[in-house]
């Protein structure tokens, strides 16, 4: 019942979003102007507008779009004349790979560091971790990206500057992290993207740890004589893990969105860069398709996280059982 309701909500969201974006994009400029042959004359310009259906009234264009969308056809890209959805799906694996790698880096580094900072908040270790996290939180991604390229690629020459490494097909999806060369291309952009979330996770874990350490059950365990490490592992960690995991799940969507900036700097061939390019040349079908795909992904992720949270949190489960 719960799931059905959420699905219904999602469909409504999709509809509203698509209408909003479609109307908005229509209002800016004319894609033909960008992409037309410079030597073309007015007659050809008019012909092209008619051919692409750009002179029809707004609602008619939207209707055509909507009826196509239901069957999976989101229009053809103006610039490439291939279905917009194909363009997005082609670039999705690259973005997902980058986003997931960034999340992995953020989690693998963030939770332990945050734990450490929470356990020893006033030591120099704890304070420097916090200082680092504030920097990571505050530095603009694009600036860090260029600094990273300058230091690691241009000056030191350890890592490649741009692009994605060679890919292998796994279950039909091209991935690049399975080869050493692919990993080398992935490290800098993934780290750049991970920085913000890493700092967030450190702060979150630290705050959670500090609160948990002050709880009665921890004091009780200590009084019982349980070793510190046990205390941390069994009580503190488990209790902070649930909210942290929920945040990680929700932030995944945000990471995919923020990848737009990273993809632009590192010339990573993902969806985000496609969006920016499409905005610049007003490739309407691609913009709308991207948004619909992203909305769909977010709604799915949120749904999954909700379900997971319900499953994990015993309090909620118990209540539901009554």
């Amino acid at each position, binding site marked *: 019942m719960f799931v059905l309701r959420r699905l219904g909500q999602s469909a409504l969201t999709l509809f509203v979003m698509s209408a909003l974006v479609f109307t908005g994009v229509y209002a*800016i*400029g*004319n*894609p*033909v*102007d*960008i*992409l*037309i*042959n*410079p*030597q*073309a*004359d*007015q*007659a*050809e*310009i008019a*012909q*092209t507008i008619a*051919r*692409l259906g750009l002179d029809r009234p707004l609602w008619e264009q939207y209707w055509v779009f909507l009826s196509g969308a239901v069957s999976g056809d989101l229009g*053809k*890209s*103006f*610039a*490439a*004349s*291939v279905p917009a959805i194909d*363009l997005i799906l*082609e*670039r999705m694996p690259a973005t997902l790979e980058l986003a997931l790698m960034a999340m992995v880096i953020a989690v693998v580094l963030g939770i332990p560091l945050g734990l450490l900072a929470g356990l020893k908040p006033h030591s120099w270790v704890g304070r420097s971790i916090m200082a680092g996290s504030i920097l990571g939180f505050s530095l603009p991604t694009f600036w860090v990206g*260029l600094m990273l*390229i*300058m230091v690691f*690629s*241009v000056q030191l*020459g350890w890592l*490649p*500057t*741009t*692009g*994605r490494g060679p*890919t292998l097909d796994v279950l039909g999806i091209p991935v690049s992290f399975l080869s050493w060369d692919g990993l080398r291309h992935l490290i800098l952009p993934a780290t750049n993207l991970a920085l913000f979330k890493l700092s967030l996770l450190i702060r979150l874990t630290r705050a959670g740890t500090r609160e948990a350490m002050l709880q009665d059950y921890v004091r009780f365990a200590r009084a019982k004589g349980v070793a510190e490490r046990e205390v941390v592992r069994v009580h503190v960690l488990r209790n902070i893990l649930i909210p942290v995991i929920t945040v990680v799940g929700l932030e995944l969507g945000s990471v995919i969105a923020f990848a737009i900036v990273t993809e*632009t*700097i*590192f*010339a990573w*061939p993902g969806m985000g*860069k*496609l969006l920016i*390019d499409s*905005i*610049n*040349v*007003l490739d309407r079908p691609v913009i709308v398709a991207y948004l619909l795909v992203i909305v769909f992904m977010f709604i799915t992720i949120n749904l999954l996280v909700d379900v997971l949270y319900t499953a994990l949190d015993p309090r909620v489960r118990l209540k539901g059982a009554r």
Partner: protein
Amino acid sequence: MKQSPRFLHGWALLLCLASIAHSAITPAAELRIGLSGEVTSLDPHFLAAQPNLTVARHVFESLTDVDPQTRLIPGLAERWRALDALNWEFNLRRGVKFHDGTELTAEDVAFSLQRPLSIKGSPGGFASFVRAVESTAVVDKYTLRVRTKYPYGALPEELNSILIVSKKHALNAGPEDFDSGRALIGTGPYRFVRYQRGDRLELARHDGWWGRRPAWDKVTLRIVTADPSRTAALLSGELDVIEHVPSADIRNINKNKKLRVMQTTSWRTILLHVDQYRPQPPGITGADGNPLARNPFMDRRVRLAISKAIHRTAIAERVMEGLAVPAANIVSPGVFGHNAALKAEPYDPEGAKRLLAEAGYPKGFNITLAGPNNRYINDEQILQTVAQLLTRIGIITRVEAAPMSAYLGRVRKEETSFSLLGWGSFAADLALRSLVATPTPDKGYGAWNWGRYSNTKVDALMEQALASVDRPKREALASAANTLAMNDLAFIPVHHQIVSWGMRAGLSYTPRTDEFTFAHHFTPR
């Protein structure tokens, strides 16, 4: 003492093995090029955009070719001539092979000239290049006759843009078939290996090519649109060549011993269109803020004052870092119809102020300068600098920069009166037709004449040039039309861009005015 034969045999065997091993482990000569524009489709007839044409021209070729100085040279057609005012004959090279081994015939050419007209859904196709063609006739395997609707001397130039595909493979093929490589069979020096949209195109040498054997077995065309990323990739050695070296990095790359920069004047000319048809154009007000009695741009003295106020050498040196040549022509130096006698207007702010006062604007006035911010080299900076320079002589200028898409939208809605444009052409009469001719939709004149400048004398000369199938006569007419238009300041020319390539020091390239980057023209030094 004599060496035993077995010993000698042993050495011989060792040498043999060594040479075999050497050739086996000698790496294939590979060239990695960083392109600056987004490639949207591999279909050579789909979209007339430079990035698409750059990659397409590695795989396909056209009837006529263009040398690095934009002069027409034979391509797939060995020679051509005008039989009379309306009929042309093209003689194809013999023995030209497609990548699948079949031979190029006039059938393929006729098909390729027809195909652009049948392309659906393109926002900017090639139909206009074959607009003048009425019909084609295959005379024999290697000869094609083309009949035009009206006398048209520019036909060979126009046909340069139509790439020849294999009729067998391209019949009923759409853009998807080209993107997947299935229909990507051409006669060019390289053949398709792999394409990853937005990332790279991998090519391998076509050993059956009729031209001089290219030096590279393997070519990778990488798409790196972000300027700093492209430079960084060259500096780190990841790419062997990059096109369009960002102006900020030219000096750096020149100083680097492992790299070099090759450059030449590009065909792209940056100019400012001024509204010459509305009595009260938008964005123009008097120094007191009220609308002016008449349009100041319609007075040639005001246009000349603006031209005098633009410090072209400062822009070339400071803004473009040397990547510009002050302009006075509609086309770049060396291009068909260029008049070398026309000199760029020297910087003369005092003279400009005097002219303004003479024209009745001693206190100057306010205007708005509009332009793109993501299309031409340093376009936004040029706008700001021009604004600064004009403000100094009393024309207080506001800048409105926007992404090209939004900017063109505003221009077409006639919301701007002072607008920046960049134009590339390899013939002055073709450029005049688009930029200066009195706008006439049914003839296709003046599609980009935003200021609606109208001069019947210029129109007449231009038409005569275009109709003239005698090349030297045509050039003289085109040059005359160009001179007339420029002296009357149909628009205000700023500069011709300089196109540059950055490459590792061991490479050489003859820089091309048409800005194309061709792997097969790079050679090791």
